[in-house]
């Protein structure tokens, strides 16, 4: 780590010299999804559209509506084409985008242009902060089988892209467990804040709760999400550890998610004295950047992140799946409450694929901890109604917006079948349109 300061003087990676930067405002297709190159600064994120429908590509099938938890995407035009009605109703989860059979939904915010500029800038140290789920999706963009773990290759790729400090958001997943677990234990013991405690890692869920259940805000854990913790820790503790001034740092959050772009722009995220998170991209954008740099991803060696803010555990990596935060928190709560060591860390009863899963966890010397794990916000709304009515029996509820958790996030590589189906559908739509124009005209 002490060598990091000298590292900034060494030559920048060669690819940067010849790289053509995408122009601000231009549209770029990355891994089958259209992105508008735009890096908002100092904007109130609640006024921004993070996803929007391309009217010319939309075939009015309505599939997006069935995946939208809030009804924010709906018929907007006379021929039935869809659109996002207002940013106020959209939680930015991107499930509409991931499930559109026509590839008609695009992302409106992309920082990739600005990140390449910062990578070129000799006075800036770009800091990587990848989420757990990214390493289970990234390989798919390079032809690897679904779900292949590419954590080590991802760190190697980040170094070759020119990131000066390879830190990892998994480390703050471990910090989150310490903070959020302690908060839960305080709520249970002191009773000064209401139970159940909801998790607050998922930015789609947090915006959903603030918008549709603001009366339950006190039930949300006050903990920031892991990335909300790594931003300020990088610029304070990380600055101390690396000897690099926080003003020189440019922190890049790399997420399987669209809603994290909203979270990074929240005005309150400035605990370090400046913006905690300078840029947010998702797995598809990282894959595109690696391809732009001409890096042969599959043949990269496995590398470790820089240790002090990078080392992580199994408890951190399972944050990527629905039920993971719960299981990781229980691995801590069990030991703290019982005073015993948890011999087998597998707590399989909270592992969830879809819907609502509940469990009673017996803890020696304490009693029973009642938990619920939910993925999908329509399911979360049912539990919220229960809490609102004062009928919720649980201590702790984990909510993930995307069905299955972050591994299925709106920013992950599209499923190959879905991509194929969308290619097929959009081709058919194009032929139909041309045929109709000729026949009908």
């Amino acid at each position, binding site marked *: 780590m002490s060598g990091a300061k000298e590292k900034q003087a060494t030559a920048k990676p060669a690819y940067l010299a010849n790289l053509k930067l995408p122009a601000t405002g231009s549209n770029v297709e990355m891994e089958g999804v259209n992105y508008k190159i735009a890096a908002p600064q100092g904007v109130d994120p609640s006024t921004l559209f993070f996803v929007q429908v391309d009217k010319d590509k939309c075939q009015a099938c309505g599939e997006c509506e069935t995946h939208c938890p809030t009804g924010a995407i709906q018929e907007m035009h006379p021929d039935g084409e869809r659109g996002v009605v207002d940013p106020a109703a959209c939680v930015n989860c991107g499930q509409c985008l991931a499930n559109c059979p026509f590839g008609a939904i695009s992302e409106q915010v992309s920082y990739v242009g600005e990140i390449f500029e910062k990578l070129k800038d000799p006075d800036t140290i770009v800091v990587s902060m990848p989420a757990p789920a990214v390493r289970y999706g990234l390989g798919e963009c390079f032809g690897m089988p679904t779900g292949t773990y590419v954590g080590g290759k991802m760190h190697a790729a980040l170094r070759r892209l020119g990131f000066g400090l390879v830190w990892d958001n998994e480390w703050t997943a471990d910090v989150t*467990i310490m903070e959020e677990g302690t908060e839960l234990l305080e709520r249970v013991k002191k009773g000064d804040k209401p139970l159940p405690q909801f998790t607050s890692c998922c930015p789609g869920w947090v915006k959903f709760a603030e918008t549709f259940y603001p009366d339950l805000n006190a039930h949300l854990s006050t903990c920031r999400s892991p990335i909300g913790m790594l931003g300020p820790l990088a610029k304070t503790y990380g600055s101390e550890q690396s000897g690099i001034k926080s003003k020189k740092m440019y922190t890049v959050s790399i997420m399987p998610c669209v809603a994290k772009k909203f979270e990074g722009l929240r005005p309150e995220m400035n605990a370090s004295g400046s913006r905690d998170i300078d840029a947010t991209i998702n797995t598809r954008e990282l894959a595109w950047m690696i391809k732009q740099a001409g890096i042969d991803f599959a043949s990269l060696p496995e590398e470790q992140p820089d240790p002090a803010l990078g080392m992580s555990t199994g408890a951190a990596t399972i944050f990527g799946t629905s039920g993971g935060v719960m299981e990781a928190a229980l691995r801590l709560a069990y030991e703290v409450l019982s005073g015993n060591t948890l011999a087998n860390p597998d707590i399989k009863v909270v592992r969830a694929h879809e819907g609502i899963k509940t469990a009673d966890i017996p803890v020696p010397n304490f009693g029973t901890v009642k938990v619920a794990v939910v993925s999908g916000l329509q399911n979360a709304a049912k539990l919220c109604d229960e809490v609102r009515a004062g009928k919720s029996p649980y201590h702790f509820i984990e909510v993930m917006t995307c069905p299955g958790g972050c591994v299925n996030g709106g920013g992950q590589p599209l499923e190959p079948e879905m991509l194929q189906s969308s290619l097929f559908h959009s081709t058919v739509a194009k032929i139909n349109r041309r045929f109709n124009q000729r026949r009908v005209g």
Partner: protein
Amino acid sequence: MKKIGLMSRRGFIKVAGIACGYSVLGFNVTREAFAATLEFVGLRQQSVYNADSKIYSIRKSQDNPMIKKLYAKDGFLHEGPCGHKSHHLLHTHYNDRSAGVKALKAKGVKLAL
């Protein structure tokens, strides 16, 4: 594009026939795609649990040496989790964002909730 009303009867039947054919074919492609999606999320989840038990040598957050260092007596967060500094850097507060959707509903926009 001109009005559909100008189309001949034969033209309409042809367009409608092709549209039907495509929609049947299209429906099946979509159905297969969604069935595959469920399996596909399962594959990614399975990979996470495999990594947890096989790749990561430490499996509990409290056992991570870098976490111990952070919360150590002489560490950056020496007051421990949920201490004063933690609250400043790592905790947050939430806003009531319901006004926007109330305004939308007042305008007659229907939402799911």
